[in-house]
């Protein structure tokens, strides 16, 4: 059931072939639905309010609120004149069986019969004393039945306008609104032998001519008055809908009830229509909903035991013409089963994915038709079946049970068509080709124009663009580098992939690639520096963004959708055939970067039951996510073996049943699901421009109403949504360490809260379980908490655990620690480099620093006594200083963030999570010891706090950058540097020269070592030289040495230094680095003079150090 119209009276019918459902409602629209899941029905506005309508032979007759009965063409919806007028509105209009006449009954007590071709030929039937409720034409065009509010049901003879008979059946009332039932009556189709009238809770059947009552159809299921009746087109079955929302279907011959259905909201059923071919009933209610009842009488027969016999019974009951009425169950029948099987695939592709409601297509009335779904299901029997059917080919002959005319098992689902994430259906004139986090591509395809509009959310990426769409592109993707467009092949032209690489620095911004013949592009995506397309030949082709063809690989099945982000490519494809409305999809996730690898090897994709995929993509942080048609958003949980975890159900946020959220993007930090709310549809229209809404994520944990459940959910959500940090760091991307630490802090806080809660509830075992998830120092806090709340047993348990943890930590990562140590050197170096910014900046920073230091000081005072000792026994009060310096591993937020709120009072910074200064003290030591190689290596690392997704800059660039930075300093150094530059080809000399200007704090160079050894020689030769002269003399002697010898000395010197740099090329650059390092040192010392405590350095350094400090403890 779905939303169809605004609330109020509605009416429904199928069009002549049954290819679409047509409804009208109190909003004055007539809507044409392709199927129940059609979110974009064609609407024809016929007036302010439509009371009733009838449809035949391409004419649409409506009774509307301006008291007229008018014609529209169908399905175009163009007005075609007014048939008749009343003094008040008509309540019901109907066609006669051949569509030449209509009858309308109005609230002004009159019934009119009008010829459609000539509206001047009217017959008026007077006699009712109250508004006319309903009408029914005798199929033989002799009689007309009418029901009215005066309580009577009359049968008129059309020819002489006389009332043939009248039954006082209904309750009297004064208006249609007050009528208990609208009493839609009906003649039996075909012969017109019976007239069915819904009276209270029964359907009375009257015989033609004699006008006596043949029988009453009733069912205990019906508890409220019946509103409408409708005959099946074959005249065998009668459906009735009640005021209470019940729909019952009887077999008129046997008088047994074959189907009972209860409206899920118990709204009054006011429209019922049988499908002309299938066993399907469309119904509407007074709240404007449209529903579809399928497979009427399918094994639900209450009195029968075996389903198969039931179907057989029906088989006999239907006459030949209705044969495919039975069979036409799942997919349209074809004239020959073999041809059908061939065509079937094509047809399936055309079907829009519909969960459980496959679209009914037009059916030809061929008697040899066979259910394709059945053929598919009974592949083994196909041949046999087909033969049988063709030979028997005799419509009236009931199929024998041995032939298995029905396949009762699961039915295959039509495979969903490939789609682009964030696009709206292709058939729309104005549609979104893509809406993602970069921008929007719209496509206009109407009479005047066929064009593509590209718009960027951030206009600094690129300006908005308007392109003519001469190639008729249907697929598109958009990234910050390029626009990718693709079109399917036409008869003359091959399928094309077009890329507009707007960020290219050369003049050619566009390239196009033609696919091989008979290969159609079905999905495209863009990553960073590459583009990919999946084709109908089950291939995925990868191109560089500049147009170079790269990898190519086969897919195991037809593609559904794909998406790219950074180096990652995710492809979703059909793994097989799904059954009973489910799709059977597989997913491949691969990395196209340096180390090409596949992460997900065609794993099955978990979808909600009976749903299909509607969106697939990556979060802004690069985690694969997808959304199914039931609104469940799932995300790859890299922290738990690459499983998929549902993170949000958008349907929970929807107000109406047919409202949806159309996802456009997912962000993990901050946690945002960006989507567009769509009222009564699955996707938004292009105009008015939809606004993005933000939904929050919620993992489907149990009992989230309770405090415990809530915190558990928060904890795991925090874990899941920070998996990307580990992924990014592992893959060498840059990311903000700050977020990671905040996350850790948040998680630990939640754990602590949960711990406290469990403590309160006396759940000590649970406490221990929780403590197992905590980090070391939080465990210590927990121990403290336990001991304070007098849970000695618990505290004992925890402390044992703490010891265990500590020992684990101590033993396992011994070597890791060493590595860490080394990295700290590097980081220290990097931070030192950072200080070599222009002095103005430094001053400001210093001020900030002082603030921070103050708070640090306070913080320390507060924190130190609080910090639990890492002793096996928490009750012993011994304090070791090292342990005291291990606060929670957190960060100073202020200095690293670049900009601070100047209006914020400093005291706000007294957040209980600022690290103590001790960490920084150790750091300053390191920075003073910074070695040449250290500083260079640091250059590699010091850009840690850049945007995610910029791959690490190579050391070359970084050092170049630092080279430029060194150009600001004081003059003495500048000269040194200049000299170095001049003497670029004589690195050693330059170095020596540089060294003359500096305190010799760094490791010795080759020359120095040589000089030390040969100083005595020089002195003996020239005893009266002073130091400078000695060096000069030494230099000239050193130069006289052969290059091999000199090299040997250099090598020696390097061996003495920290690093094993042997590469001569690198050596050349060292001069600059050296200089820089030296300057850093100088500034370091200056700084430390200025304020006793060193600055908190680069955020990342800080974090690493604090983490390290903690580890050591």
């Amino acid at each position: 059931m779905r939303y169809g119209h605004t609330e109020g009276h509605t009416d429904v019918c199928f069009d002549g072939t049954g290819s679409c459902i047509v409804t009208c409602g109190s909003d004055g629209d007539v809507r044409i639905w392709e199927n129940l899941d059609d979110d974009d029905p064609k609407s024809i506005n016929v007036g302010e309010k439509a009371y009733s309508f009838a449809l035949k032979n391409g004419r649409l007759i409506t009774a509307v609120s301006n008291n007229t009965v008018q014609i529209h063409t169908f399905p175009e919806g163009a007005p075609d004149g007014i048939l008749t007028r009343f003094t008040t509105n008509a309540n019901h209009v109907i066609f006669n069986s051949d569509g030449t006449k209509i009858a309308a009954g109005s609230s002004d007590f009159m019934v009119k019969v009008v010829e459609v071709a000539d509206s001047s030929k009217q017959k008026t039937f007077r006699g009712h004393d109250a508004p006319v409720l309903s009408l029914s034409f005798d199929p033989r065009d002799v009689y007309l039945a009418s029901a009215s509010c005066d309580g009577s049901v009359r049968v008129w003879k059309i020819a002489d306008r006389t009332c043939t008979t009248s039954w006082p059946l209904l309750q009297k009332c004064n208006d249609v609104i007050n009528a208990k039932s609208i009493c839609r009556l009906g003649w039996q189709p075909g012969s017109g032998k019976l007239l069915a009238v819904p009276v209270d809770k029964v359907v009375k059947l009257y015989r033609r001519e004699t006008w006596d009552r043949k029988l009453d159809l009733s069912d205990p299921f019906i508890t409220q008055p019946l509103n409408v009746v409708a005959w099946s087109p074959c005249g065998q079955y009668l459906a009735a809908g009640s005021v209470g929302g019940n729909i019952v279907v009887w077999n008129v011959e046997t008088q047994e009830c074959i189907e009972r259905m209860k409206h899920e909201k118990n709204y009054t059923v006011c429209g019922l229509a049988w499908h002309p071919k299938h066993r399907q009933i469309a119904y509407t209610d007074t709240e404007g909903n449209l529903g579809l009842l399928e497979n009427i009488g399918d094994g639900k027969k209450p009195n029968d035991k075996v389903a198969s016999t039931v179907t057989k019974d029906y088989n006999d009951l239907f006459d030949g013409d209705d044969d495919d009425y039975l069979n036409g169950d799942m997919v349209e029948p074809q004239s020959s089963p073999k041809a059908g099987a061939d065509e079937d695939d094509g047809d399936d592709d055309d079907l829009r994915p519909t969960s459980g409601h496959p679209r009914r297509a037009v059916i030809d009335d061929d008697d040899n038709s066979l259910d394709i779904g059945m053929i598919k299901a009974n592949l083994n029997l196909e041949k046999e079946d087909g033969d049988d059917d063709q030979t028997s080919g005799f419509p009236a002959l009931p199929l024998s049970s041995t032939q298995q005319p029905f396949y009762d098992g699961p039915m295959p689902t039509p495979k969903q068509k490939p789609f682009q994430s964030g696009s709206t259906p292709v058939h729309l004139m104005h549609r979104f080709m893509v809406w993602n986090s970069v921008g929007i591509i719209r496509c206009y395809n109407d009479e005047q124009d066929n064009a593509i509009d590209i718009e960027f959310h951030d206009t600094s990426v690129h300006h908005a663009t308007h392109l003519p769409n001469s190639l008729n592109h249907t697929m598109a993707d958009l990234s910050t580098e390029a626009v990718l467009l693709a079109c399917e092949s036409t008869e003359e032209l091959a399928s094309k992939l077009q890329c507009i690489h707007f960020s290219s620095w050369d003049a050619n911004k566009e390239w196009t690639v033609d696919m091989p013949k008979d290969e159609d592009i079905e999905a495209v995506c863009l990553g960073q520096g590459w583009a990919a397309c999946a084709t109908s030949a089950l291939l995925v082709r990868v191109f560089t963004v500049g147009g170079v063809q790269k990898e190519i690989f086969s897919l195991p099945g037809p593609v559904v959708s794909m998406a790219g982000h950074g180096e990652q490519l995710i492809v979703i494809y059909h793994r097989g055939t799904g059954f009973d409305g489910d799709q059977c999809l597989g997913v491949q996730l691969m990395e196209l970067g340096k180390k090409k690898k596949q992460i997900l090897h065609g794993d099955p994709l978990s979808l909600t039951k009976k749903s299909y995929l509607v969106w697939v993509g990556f979060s802004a942080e690069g985690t694969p996510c997808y959304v199914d048609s039931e609104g469940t958003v799932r995300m790859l949980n890299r922290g738990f073996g690459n499983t998929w975890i549902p993170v949000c159900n958008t349907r929970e946020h929807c107000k109406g049943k047919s409202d949806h959220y159309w996802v456009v993007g997912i962000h993990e930090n901050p946690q945002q699901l960006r989507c567009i709310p769509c009222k009564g549809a699955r996707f938004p229209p292009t105009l008015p421009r939809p606004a993005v809404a933000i939904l929050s994520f919620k993992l489907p944990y149990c009992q989230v109403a309770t405090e415990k459940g809530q915190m558990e959910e928060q904890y795991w959500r925090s874990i899941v949504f920070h998996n990307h940090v580990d992924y990014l760091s592992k893959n060498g991307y840059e990311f903000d360490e700050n977020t990671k630490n905040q996350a850790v802090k948040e998680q630990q806080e939640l754990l602590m809260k949960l711990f406290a809660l469990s403590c309160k509830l006396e759940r000590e075992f649970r406490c221990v379980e929780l403590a197992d998830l905590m980090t070391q120092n939080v465990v210590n806090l927990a121990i403290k908490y336990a001991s304070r709340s007098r849970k000695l047993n618990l505290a004992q348990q925890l402390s044992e655990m703490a010891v265990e943890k500590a020992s684990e930590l101590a033993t396992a990562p011994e070597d890791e620690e060493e590595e860490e140590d080394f990295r700290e050197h590097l980081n220290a170096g990097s931070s030192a480099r950072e200080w070599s910014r222009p002095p103005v900046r430094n001053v400001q920073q210093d001020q900030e620093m002082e603030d921070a230091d103050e708070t640090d000081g306070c913080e320390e005072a507060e924190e130190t006594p609080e910090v639990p000792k890492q002793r096996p026994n928490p009750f012993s009060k011994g304090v070791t200083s090292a342990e005291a310096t291990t606060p929670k591993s957190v960060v100073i937020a202020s200095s690293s963030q670049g900009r601070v709120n100047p209006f914020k009072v400093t005291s706000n910074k007294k957040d209980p999570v600022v690290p103590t200064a001790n960490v920084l003290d150790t750091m300053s030591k390191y920075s003073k010891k910074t070695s040449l190689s250290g500083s260079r290596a640091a250059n590699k690392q010091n850009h840690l706090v850049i945007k995610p997704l910029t791959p690490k800059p190579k050391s070359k660039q970084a050092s170049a950058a630092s080279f430029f930075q060194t150009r600001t300093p004081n003059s003495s150094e500048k000269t040194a540097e200049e000299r170095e530059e001049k003497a670029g080809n004589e690195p050693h000399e330059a170095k020596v020269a540089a060294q003359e200007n500096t305190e010799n704090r760094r490791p010795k160079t080759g020359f120095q070592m040589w000089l030390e050894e040969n100083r005595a020689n020089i002195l003996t030769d020239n005893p009266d030289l002073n130091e400078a002269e000695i060096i000069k003399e030494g230099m000239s002697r050193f130069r006289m040495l052969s290059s091999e010898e000199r090299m040997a000395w250099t090598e020696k010197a390097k061996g003495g230094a920290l690093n094993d740099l042997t590469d001569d090329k690198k050596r050349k650059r060292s001069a600059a680095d050296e200089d820089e390092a030296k300057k850093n040192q100088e500034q370091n010392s200056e700084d430390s003079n200025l304020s006793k405590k060193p600055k908190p350095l680069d955020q990342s350094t800080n974090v690493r150090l604090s983490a390290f400090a903690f580890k050591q403890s």
Partner: protein
Amino acid sequence: MEPAEAEFLAEKELVTIVPNFSLDRIHLIGGDLGPFNPGLPVEVPVWLAINLKQRQKCRLIPPEWMDVAKLEEIREQERKEDTFTPMPSPYYMELTKLLLNYASDNIPKADEIRTLVKDTWDTRVAKLRLSADSFVRQQEAHAKLDNLTLMEINTTGTFLTQALDHMYKLRTNLQPGESSHSQDF
């Protein structure tokens, strides 16, 4: 108070915009604004919205009440009732003027909205005049008017109080004792 001053106050009202640039949270004395993410709606004061709009840095999302159907309802309600009905925003007139002047391209049916708001305004001001008239006529000492917006008060406020002052003077001068006194002077 001048209309310009009322407008100035109205500029503090928040409206939703969709920026097309990226900017971190900005800290101002009046409070923090942002962060601005391209394509993501954010609430900002009207003055900033207009400024950004003029520089083509954002797209404005009209306030919820700035909708033809809603305003029609308000107008009808206003016409039906004798007293003042509550307005959707205390600065409805100012906001309409500002937003329609600077961002009419982002507001569907801008002209209709302008007319509707003007109609509502006219109705209300007529009511205000009427009540002022009866107030003076009946020589009441005090009256209470609910749901008036600042701008509306300012249309008659100064004039009415001054007029009342004058009338008071005239009335007191009518009394014989006083009049002779003033003649002496």
